[in-house]
């Protein structure tokens, strides 16, 4: 059986005339590709090409392209320079004292590179023409994936467990606690009321008695006293009232500050 072989490089046979020289240079993969193409046009084995002729063809090509004002990549120009040098080496007899590589050696090197590139293209084509997986050769179409049963080993310490228990029991307690709604005197309220109550009096008055109207419920007593006391301290600091306490835990007396204008 024969399988149709595909030339993966799909290089059409070069036309005989000089038209090739006018093709867009972008059609080549690089100067070596161009050289290979030119060498093939000599229609002989790469081993027996005339490197000199090849160099001349290349230089001719580059000239033609430049006449057409087509920008050439630096690669092509470097190769042109090198080939011009090679040409001169090939045409001028080698002086015995010359340390430079001979023109023949340079030509052989170029030939080697062309042969190697051609060989790589040939094997690439051969590779692509092999029975390839997914094209001519197939893998199992219905793979049966290996099921991975992941069993989790859970990790927890007794401490974690007890902490979790204790903390949620405590949380449970606070969840049942409903704070009493209390009437809380704000400091601003206390200060306003205190100032209003003291009024114009310059007499010492027990602070509690000013507040007697407000001590309606025993539950409010603490907040009223605390807020009033705090406010009174603030008012003393501002120089608006005087405070006096005769003895420890004794009643607090309050009066309007003397210097304060009514």
């Amino acid at each position: 059986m024969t399988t149709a072989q595909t030339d993966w490089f799909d290089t059409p046979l070069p036309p005989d005339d000089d038209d090739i020289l006018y093709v867009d240079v972008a059609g080549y993969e690089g100067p070596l590709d161009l050289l290979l193409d030119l060498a093939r046009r000599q229609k002989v084995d790469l081993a027996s090409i005339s490197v000199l002729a090849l160099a001349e063809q290349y230089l001719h090509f580059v000239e033609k392209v430049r006449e057409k004002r087509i920008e050439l990549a630096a690669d092509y120009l470097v190769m042109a320079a090198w080939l011009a040098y090679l040409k001169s080496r090939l045409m001028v007899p080698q002086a015995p004292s010359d340390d430079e590589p001979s023109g023949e050696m340079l030509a052989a090197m170029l030939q080697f590179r062309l042969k190697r590139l051609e060989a790589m293209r040939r094997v690439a084509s051969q590779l692509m023409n092999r029975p390839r997986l997914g094209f001519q050769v197939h893998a199992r179409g219905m793979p049966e994936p290996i099921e991975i049963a992941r069993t989790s080993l859970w990790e927890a310490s007794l401490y974690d467990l007890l902490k979790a228990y204790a903390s949620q029991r405590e949380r449970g307690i606070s969840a049942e606690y409903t704070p009493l709604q209390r009437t809380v005197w704000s400091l601003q309220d206390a200060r306003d009321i205190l100032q209003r109550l003291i009024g114009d009096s310059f007499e010492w008055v027990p602070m509690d008695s000013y507040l007697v109207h407000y001590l309606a419920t025993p539950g409010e007593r603490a907040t009223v006293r605390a807020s009033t006391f705090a406010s009174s301290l603030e008012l003393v600091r501002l120089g608006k009232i005087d405070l006096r306490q005769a003895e420890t835990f004794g009643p607090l007396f309050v009066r309007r500050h003397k210097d304060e204008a009514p």
Partner: protein
Amino acid sequence: MNPGDGDHQEIGERHLRVLEALLFAASEPLDPVSFKPYLGAGADVQALLLTLQTRYADRGINLVRRGDKWAFRTAQDLGFLLRREEQETRPLSRPALETLAIIAYHQPSTRAEIEEVRGVATGKGTLDLLMEAGWVRMRGRRRTPGRPVTYGTTDAFLDHFGLESLSDLPGLEELKGSGLLSGRLPPSLQIPLPFDGALREDEDPLDPDDHDHDHDRDHDGEDDDA
């Protein structure tokens, strides 16, 4: 055997090879009709398939029929090859830890009771996970309306947490002493003594079908710990 037989056999073998390759590469079971274009006009596809089936009968892969279609499949007795157990160690999530702790102390307890202590709904996944871990089991059913399932801990639970018995779980004073419970606790707070005997007087045995993983039919709580 005359030469004609030889040819015939050779053609048969070739057909079998083609079937093998086609069945192997197919991404779904194949209808016998689909082989026709690959075989000679006179090929008896059905007979070829049966021959192939016999050949592979004792192999690690078998040719099996699925309805009208055919496919290669791993031999059933080797199915275990395609399953691999992998263990991973993972820390227990907080909801799971809390639920486990409540079950441990309050057992036997129902899901509603667990939720009462936790103050949030307990996801089905949490109890499943704890049962899967082998630490929690269904004990029975509470003899109350709705007959909710009661949960308790297992021996594996004791084993994992290094307890000889449930009575090794620290009580109120010990929890306070270790600083796990703060001192400011209402006197009403009690830590129950876990019960790990057989059924209690208010528990019925489980129903016969309780083990079919439908222990949650009595509750459709949201999952708070997915």
